[in-house]
């Protein structure tokens, strides 16, 4: 009996490991590279998970007018300097100011605009 219980326990253990292997974090990181690399800077990685801890959805998606589909809002550095979009908070008062280029422009070269993460169902438009 003991011999037979061994493999079944192993199977249970294996089943427990499956989620470990496939359930990599779905960060909801948003990559913005419509203009960045074309203008000589690294793509922007916006950590959505970081911001939603601090602000409700409607702060950015209603109050600041950032559309929910990644990359569909035309955001330029001049907008930020003028206090629009990210610049509404990243002004040195609510959050660090926008002269910390590397904190946002932190992506690898060649990334495409979109929502990223490790989970296999990550992001809209999986087909």
């Amino acid at each position: 009996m003991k011999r037979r219980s061994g493999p079944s326990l192993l199977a249970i253990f294996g089943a427990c490991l499956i989620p470990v292997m496939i359930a990599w974090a779905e960060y909801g990181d948003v990559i913005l590279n419509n203009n960045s690399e074309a203008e000589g800077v690294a793509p922007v990685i916006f950590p959505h998970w970081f911001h939603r801890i601090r602000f409700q959805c409607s702060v950015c998606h209603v109050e600041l007018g950032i559309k929910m589909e990644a990359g569909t809002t035309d955001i330029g550095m001049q907008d930020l300097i003028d206090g629009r979009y990210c610049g509404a908070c990243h002004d040195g008062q609510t959050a660090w100011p926008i002269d910390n280029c590397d904190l946002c422009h932190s992506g690898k070269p060649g990334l495409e605009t979109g929502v990223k993460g490790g989970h296999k169902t990550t992001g809209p438009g999986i087909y």
Partner: protein
Amino acid sequence: MLSAALLATASVGLAAGKWKPLKKDGIHDPSNPAINVLQEPADALGVLQVDTAGNMVDWARSLEYRFIEPRGSIDGDYQPEVLDTTVLMRNTMPMRYVRFPHRTHTQWMSCETCHDSIFVAEVDANPISMGKILQGEYCGICHGAVAFPLTECDRCHNTDSSTVGHEKPAPARDEGS
């Protein structure tokens, strides 16, 4: 006993492997000096309520139990009104009906976030389908991207059709029928 130990080992492995460090997440440039300044996902997410899918955080519970208290406006003076109604969607083919909780969603966002740019604020007026959701429309704008993924069928398809009309909670709360 042994299986308990194995399960414990598995859960430790699960906790350790949930969030990749920024340097290894495949999108951040490890040579960027700022990478040491940015908050690691495990530091921020590891203290929140645990989920079994998506980014392994139960965001709704984390909010409900006040693990997080996100501001409702930039200056923090405004909190969107919480709407405590549900919408029952019956056109679900062989799947269970969908009972959409306004409450869970309005705790996160104001009405304008969804209405009317994504959903017309009228029952049965939105031609929602799983095909469209899977392509990132309607619910799929958030679910599968920043909210729990579309593998979790039962969380939305949560209502047995035979129970509808025989419920203890007042059906008057339902906007749909």
